[in-house]
């Protein structure tokens, strides 16, 4: 077969598909995402570093790809599984096909897969490691490659995905009436966003909420931040989303612990939310197959409103964190904690993705709350 790609899953499942992305051999963790729209944003979300994404939505590639819908400068995900790949696309913003995009980005694309069966497998057996290859096609060979590769828990992807240099983020959120990003207004304050693999739209939303955002690498010297805060240059710190197991990020947790102790107003999303928990002494737990999609109901316990949220995480904070923080948001599917406000610190965080992109927009009030929070504290 042309474009033959062979796949071996940790649970012993060995099968073939058709490659429409980058060639080669790649090892990663396989997860599924149930979003109906926004495959490009998902593929370019740095939180998927080291992962293969199974799209449950069956037709993928329909709208092509474009430069606007990137959630980071490049894609860090390992590959994607789809049922039906569309080389020809139809959307007035489409610029190039998904296949071309994946090849450029070095991401594998695997089509003609019973993604529903894969999803059911992950639901039953949990997220797992896998290998895909356009070069090797025997089960033994692939199995051997997988066995000789590190597991996702053992890899620190943050150094790869985080920015190497600090910079000021220049854009606001997307203006659908102009089909372009907004030019920021004069900011009310400045913050630092620590980049663990930040999605662009988080930065866009922060800017739109009224702050100047200096994005810094994960390896930033904590003194740099402390100094800027004590000098009054910045009013708060944002801790971004990012890939992988938070428990391997010991340096980051230590840095955050120092920021916590300095009583700096902080806000974390996803990995940022998890690292805050770890920094406060509460170790995260791995979920069986995680939350990946754009349809999870999250209840805002303060207002009683149900928000349909964008989700992408395999880990969650432990229930006993209520000892030091109040739960502000709860996932109605499995009752896991989705949002916290720390009792004695000016810190809050959410597990889901209020920046959406892709996904519903109703949670983006959180960015305004954060800006209000730092200006008031």
């Amino acid at each position, binding site marked *: 077969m042309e474009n033959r790609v062979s796949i071996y899953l940790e649970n012993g499942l060995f099968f073939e598909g058709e490659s429409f992305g980058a060639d080669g051999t790649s090892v990663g963790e396989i997860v599924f995402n149930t979003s109906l729209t926004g495959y490009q944003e998902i593929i370019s979300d740095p939180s998927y570093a080291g992962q293969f994404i199974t799209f449950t*939505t069956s037709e993928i590639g329909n709208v092509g790809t474009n430069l606007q819908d990137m959630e980071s400068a490049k894609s860090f995900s390992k590959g994607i599984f789809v049922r*039906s790949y569309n080389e020809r696309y139809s959307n007035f913003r489409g610029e190039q096909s998904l296949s071309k995009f994946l090849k450029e980005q070095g991401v594998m694309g695997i089509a003609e897969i019973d993604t529903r069966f894969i999803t059911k497998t992950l*639901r039953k057996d949990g997220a797992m490691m896998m290998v895909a290859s356009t070069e090797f096609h025997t089960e033994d060979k692939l199995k051997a490659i997988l066995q000789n590769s590190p597991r996702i828990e053992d890899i620190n992807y943050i150094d790869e995905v985080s920015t190497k240099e600090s910079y000021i983020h220049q854009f606001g959120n997307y203006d659908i009436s102009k089909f372009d990003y907004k030019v920021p207004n004069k900011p009310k304050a400045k913050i630092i966003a620590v980049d663990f693999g930040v999605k662009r739209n988080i930065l866009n939303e922060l800017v739109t909420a009224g702050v100047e955002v200096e994005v810094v690498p994960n390896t930033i010297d904590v003194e740099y931040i402390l100094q800027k805060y004590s000098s009054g240059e910045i009013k708060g710190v944002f801790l971004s989303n990012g890939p992988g197991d938070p428990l391997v990020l010991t340096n980051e947790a230590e840095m955050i612990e120092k920021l916590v102790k300095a009583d700096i107003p902080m806000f974390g999303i996803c990995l940022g939310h998890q690292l805050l928990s770890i920094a406060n002494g509460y170790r995260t737990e791995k979920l069986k197959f995680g939350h990946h999609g754009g349809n999870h109901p999250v209840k805002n316990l303060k207002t009683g409103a149900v928000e349909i949220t964008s989700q992408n995480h395999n880990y969650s904070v432990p229930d006993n964190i209520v000892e030091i923080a109040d739960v502000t948001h709860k996932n109605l599917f499995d009752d896991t904690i989705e949002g916290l406000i720390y009792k004695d610190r000016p810190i809050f965080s959410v597990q889901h993705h209020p920046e959406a992109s892709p996904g519903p927009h109703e949670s983006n009030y959180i960015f305004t709350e954060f800006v209000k929070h730092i200006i008031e504290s």
Partner: protein
Amino acid sequence: MPKREDIKTILLIGSGPIVIGQASEFDYSGTQAVKTLKSLGYRVVLINSNPATIMTDPEFADRTYIEPIDEQVIADIIKKENVDAILPTMGGQTALNAAMSMYEKGMLEGVEFLGAKPEAIKKGEDRQLFKEAMQKIGMDLPKSKYAYNIDEAMEVTKEIGFPLIIRASFTLAGGGSGVAYNIEEFKDIAQKGLDASPINEILIEESLLGWKEYEMEVIRDREDNCIIVCSIENFDPMGVHTGDSITVAPALTLTDKEYQHMRNASFAVLREIGVDTGGSNVQFSINPADGRMTIIEMNPRVSRSSALASKATGYPIAKVATLLAVGFTLDEITNDITGTPASFEPVIDYVVTKVPRFTFEKFPEASSTLGTSMKSVGEVMAIGRTFKESVQKALYSLETGLTGFDEIRGSDEDIVHELRRPNSERILYIGEAFRRGMSIDEVFQISKVDPWFLYHIEEIIKFEENIDYSILENATLLREAKSMGFSDSRIAKLSSFSETQVRVSRKRFGINHQYNEVDTCSAEFEALTPYLYSTVEKNPLQPEEEEEKERKRVLILGGGPNRIGQGIEFDYCCVHSSFALKDMNVESIMYNCNPETVSTDYDTSDKLYFEPIDFEHVASIIDREQPDGVIVHFGGQTPLKLANALTEYGAKIAGTPASVIDIAEDREKFSQFLRKHNLKQPENGTATTKDGAYRIANEIGYPVLVRPSYVLGGRAMRIVYNQSELEQYMEEAVSVSNESPVLVDKFLDRAIELDVDAISDGTSVYLGGVMQHIEEAGIHSGDSACSLPTVSISDEILKEIDATTKTIALGLGVRGLMNIQYAIYQDEVFLIEVNPRASRTVPFVSKTTGIPMAKVATRVMLGEELKSALDFYDKYEVIKFEDGVYKPQLKDHVAVKEAVFPFNKIDGADLILGPEMKSTGEVMGISNSFPISFAKSQLASKNRIPREGKVFISLNNLDKEHSLEIAKDFVDLGFKIVATSGTHKYFRENGIESEAVLKISEGRPNIDDKLKNGEIALVINTSDNRSSKNDAKLIRQTVLRESIPYFTTLAATKATTEALKEMKLHRFDVTPIQDYLSE
């Protein structure tokens, strides 16, 4: 907050008869609503004039009024039942309009609106208010302006350029709407729109022709939580009513940014309109060139699209909307399918395609070009993993003989013409265009169908080239074809093999259908309710599983898409069969492809397969489920046609076997059977040549009834009175041959027809109902009004009917339901037709007698004795044994069924009745006297009998001599008769006073002027096109346009005068069916 305790009695308004634009989807939503309200402990009062609905079964609501959906009737019910609140959002536009009109007249004082408040309904429905509301929240709208008369309308054309869209306010399914490309066309459509709108208002709009069209199905709760249940993208670009468009879910050509914009806009619309709780539908269009999005309209109620969205995702919108209406919030409701909260947005891992079903063949004079007024009568939905699989499945689900993208004959010019013209077969023309080498861009430029869809169709057509004789030896190729949705029959056609050969080969290679759940969540959670569809994966991973069998299991094959001749009645029977299986603790498996039904509700049966009803897919289910019985008798002709093939395949047909069905369907065998039992049928013959037909007709004598040998609903059936008419018929209407013979029957002029529904277990027989047709023989039984019990049939004849029915049932070996049509001609009983299956009248008979015939029949079909099956369901104790048969002891009531026609929807259609069925639905009138029941049935079918005024009588010559008594009655009742010269003269000669009026062709002012001026209260017009072609037709067009009550047969007119006499003496009372039955 849990349910509200401050309300006790809730009135639910149904949608009335099935008409174009309002089909059985509202039985589905209404049934969900009734069940939900009842389970919460509310006292539920229901009004719906349509007896063929599940919701009007006496066991659902507490009080069920099968009465006309009329303001005064509703007011009487509200008073009688102490109604606290009304739920008007479940019964389509009918319910909403009735409630709103009553509200505005102050007839609903003290009755609370649940779901949407009157102000919100008004804002959503009134185009001006809607426009203002949308402008307020910054929505982009097409340029538009209102007009209230033709002069104002003409002004607007100067401001907005052509083409223009005209929409009439407050009409159903786009009635009175259209697209105008020039001033002349504009004038015509604008005038029609002004007439159609109850407030004489039209909206004239910038044309968005060629834009992409989308729908969002939205739910909102009282805490302002909003969710999108489903996004739908139309295959047909703007300009075709969404009900007539092929639609696809989910939306496929939007990026997340555009999708979320549409989602946010949908919520903003609900908030601004003020839909506090419940489901709504919001429609958008997008300019494919630059992405500009405008809002088109919204419906503050459940709709056809919400039914589709429910079936497409598994999310029960009507049920959830009902719970929200009585106080719950989304997070307090559980999603039955997964056990998780209902406050989420369903996601799907397949593609759903809906294709509408049309019946233009019934109305050859009507235009088949699609526009903004809905014309389709039904739809199918297909589920496939990919668009290719989904759309092909949908095409062969339609039962129009398609095996997929079948070839189309015609010149290249024809193809181009049909690509441009929106029509019901355009998708096939697209396929054909690619087959002939047209490019994507050419097809797009002409049709404006989004290129994304075109790519896939082109790929399907390209793949056809790979399918040749070698495919049966090429497992990879065969699997690939199957995974693209090619049917076995299509592969057979393309490879010149038989379907059986393809199937054998497929099975040899292990290429079987696999079954996936419709689970609202793309497999993220386990599905608790088995709602399944088939697919073929190119690289299958799922191991084939054996279905575990714990108890007896029966498969019910449904009726497929609604169409004229096969509608909701059959779905009713299938649903009842399923309920009966539940009562017997037998596992029920429902199989259907029509989303507008109760049968395809996920909780109707133990298991649901949403699949095309063809041999390939049914056989595959039989392999998988190994059912102990297959019921093919309840879904109409669709499943019945499969009886032979399934029997040969080894399936166990429950009840009446295929061999018996065959005898009844085969004319020769049937005639033999009748001769053997000494039963009479009209003289007849079968012709395989034109000359043969003339010879037979001469032998048996004119008039004769002619038709092709295979017909559904009397298609192409005609009565001819002489050889020249027969010659014309043979030339134009049919192509006669050995393969398609033409049947010639003696026509029994002015005979009275009877319809009998019966059940037999092989040893005894139950005559569930003997109905007398009001119209005489010659009018299709489905179009005829009928009365249960009979009104003018002698006991002697009725005894003969009992005996004959028994003879036929036992003689044929019927086990289950059967329907017989008799004609009483010169006091003799003739057999017209025997159908050993459920008939259209089963629901009507069941409602009237209190014996649910389809349920009883189901027990009998599974082997129970008739007597014990009857006893099981004899809730009202009506069963008696008399004259050798079981029958119901009817109580004092009389029920009249009346047919409802689509003439006002299908532009150019003529309202004359004949042997070809034209009605889409039915209503029932019930009271303690025949005339009042008849009057109720007329009111319910929107043909309100006037109490006074002028009646215009125009008769064909054959009718004149039978008309004097009726004319005299009208005069005695205080009516003034108006007649054209011939009839006027005839009346004068016979001493009946009438006013002469000019025919249209005789000058002005003529009858047409009088009709248009509202001077005529009632029209009796039996003249057909033979006697006065142009006048008669023009008069009928005016009658339709002006909505003047009319009758086209003397028999119905006679019933009308009797009703008028009775209405002078008695009050028009409303009584629930439960009271009639337990009187």
